[in-house]
């Protein structure tokens, strides 16, 4: 038997890319949620948190509709000459970003709220523009939250199944990620293959959780 590494690499690529995008998009969103006086804040916050309670298939179903050639996103990407994103790797990335969003935004938002307004006021009184204050004060002080968010976002994307199945299907090398591959192996009674993948996932997940706890303890101690 030769072990097929393709789903593993594909999963790591998907999770890595999703985490990077989530940090880039989720951090400003978390900042806004932590700071805005706007009343719409709780509504936006609820929208971001929705994947926590929604069955992944529901999210996948609506995404599939929107990505289809007649859906709004599908029509837009087609008009841009990108084709439609359903059953493609970019489509999976989009789905994962939405699905894992709360796991990144929530810890980062909590961290920004814990930092409070005082350090930003101090920075302003020391001539730092709001943008400079954000990068040199708010971000470094929120580092524990950013790390937690990155780890959770990555791990959650690795474990995703329902959304992938709905919008990605099962195309080897393109959308067939780990969780789908395990499902596939079980369906076709390839127990050995399923064991290797599932066991690997188990060990990986355990290590992620241990790493998170240690990281939190370490940063908690380093904090003032």
């Amino acid at each position: 038997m030769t072990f097929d590494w393709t789903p593993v690499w594909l999963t790591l690529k998907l999770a890595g890319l999703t985490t990077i995008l989530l940090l880039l998009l989720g951090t400003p969103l978390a900042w806004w949620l932590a700071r805005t006086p706007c009343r719409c804040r709780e509504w936006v916050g609820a929208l971001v948190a929705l994947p926590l309670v929604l069955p992944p298939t529901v999210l996948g179903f609506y995404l599939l509709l929107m990505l289809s050639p007649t859906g709004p996103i599908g029509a837009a990407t087609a008009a841009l000459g990108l084709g439609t994103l359903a059953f493609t790797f970019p489509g999976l990335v989009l789905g994962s970003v939405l699905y894992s969003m709360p796991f990144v935004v929530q810890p980062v938002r909590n961290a920004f709220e814990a930092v409070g307004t005082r350090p930003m006021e101090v920075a302003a009184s020391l001539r730092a523009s709001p943008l400079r204050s954000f990068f040199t004060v708010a971000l470094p002080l929120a580092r524990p939250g950013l790390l937690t968010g990155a780890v959770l976002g990555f791990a959650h994307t690795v474990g995703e199944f329902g959304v992938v199945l709905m919008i990605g299907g099962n195309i080897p090398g393109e959308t067939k990620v780990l969780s789908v591959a395990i499902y596939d192996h079980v369906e076709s009674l390839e127990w050995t293959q399923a064991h290797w993948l599932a066991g690997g996932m188990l060990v990986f997940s355990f290590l992620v959780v241990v790493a998170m706890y240690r990281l939190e303890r370490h940063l908690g101690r380093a904090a003032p």
Partner: protein
Amino acid sequence: MTLEIDLTLERPGGFRLAARFNAPSRGVTALFGGSGSGKTTVLRCVAGLERARGHCRVKGETWQDAGRFLPSHRRPIGYVFQEASLFPHLSVRANLEFGWRLVEPGGRRIVFDEAVELLGIGALLTRATARLSGGERQRVAIARALLTSPRLLLMDEPLSALDHASKEAIIPYLERVFDELGLPVLYVSHHPDEVARLADHMVLMEGGRVRASGEAADLMTRLDLPLARFDSASAFLDGQVAGHDDTFHLTYLDTNGGRFTVPREDLEIGKRARVQVHARDVSLSLTDHHDTSILNILPARVLDTQDLDPAQLIVRLGLEDGQNLLARITRRSGVALGLHEGMPLYAQIKGMALVG
């Protein structure tokens, strides 16, 4: 008068600020008042941390008026918060350099080493901020604010988070900063003693409004204002160190109104010094006694009096040089002496202390 401030602000809770005052462009102006009087809010508005309506002009430069609002980071201020608020992710040196680096080299009027020396923090530079004591943290915060070469220093109760010993230890540093840099300071406080020691000018705040503003020593002794009615009501007199008596361990202080004798303090002769005289330590006499243990007896004139309670009254006295004293005596004594405005008499001071 080159700090012109006129700010109004309404808060949802019903708090309304309407503060209008001028302050001199040199020396320390205390914003004094109880909690909720709006003194910190005024400071935050001057810093641009809160947006009030009105105007704010400093040394001819408009920071804010009807059509203009400079954001905080564009105002040449130094701000010292109640808690030192050092950046915990930076070392002491990096904290100091944070604002210093953001000022163009040509605009820096305070040399890095000078600020470090002025606040005595040279030995702390490489430390993590978490390893500093409260007093050390606040000294670093003051140096950090000074290193932005501010044209106005704003201090929000910088000593209130410190214990008594740290407070006493940091005041000499503050006095050095105020004396040597000569930049205007707005200093928020609710401690009369602190104000008296550090401030020249005072703005008395009450319920979001300015009740009075003027010379600190004058406002402290005005009978129509609450300070003279405090239990710890005091007058503060400025003089010059005239000499020391080594035999009896005393220091002489000359004012134009007379010479004071106080317990010896190691001060250079000729240096300006300020003494605090509590109203409760002053008694009045119609004649100049020499058969008494009281060393400090000065000719004075009654300016006005006011009842404090059914038993006591407070008397404001003018010394010959125009400085004021307060005396708290019983109403019975007042009647017995036949006190009236303009009456000459002698103030006997039982105890006084040099405060800086």
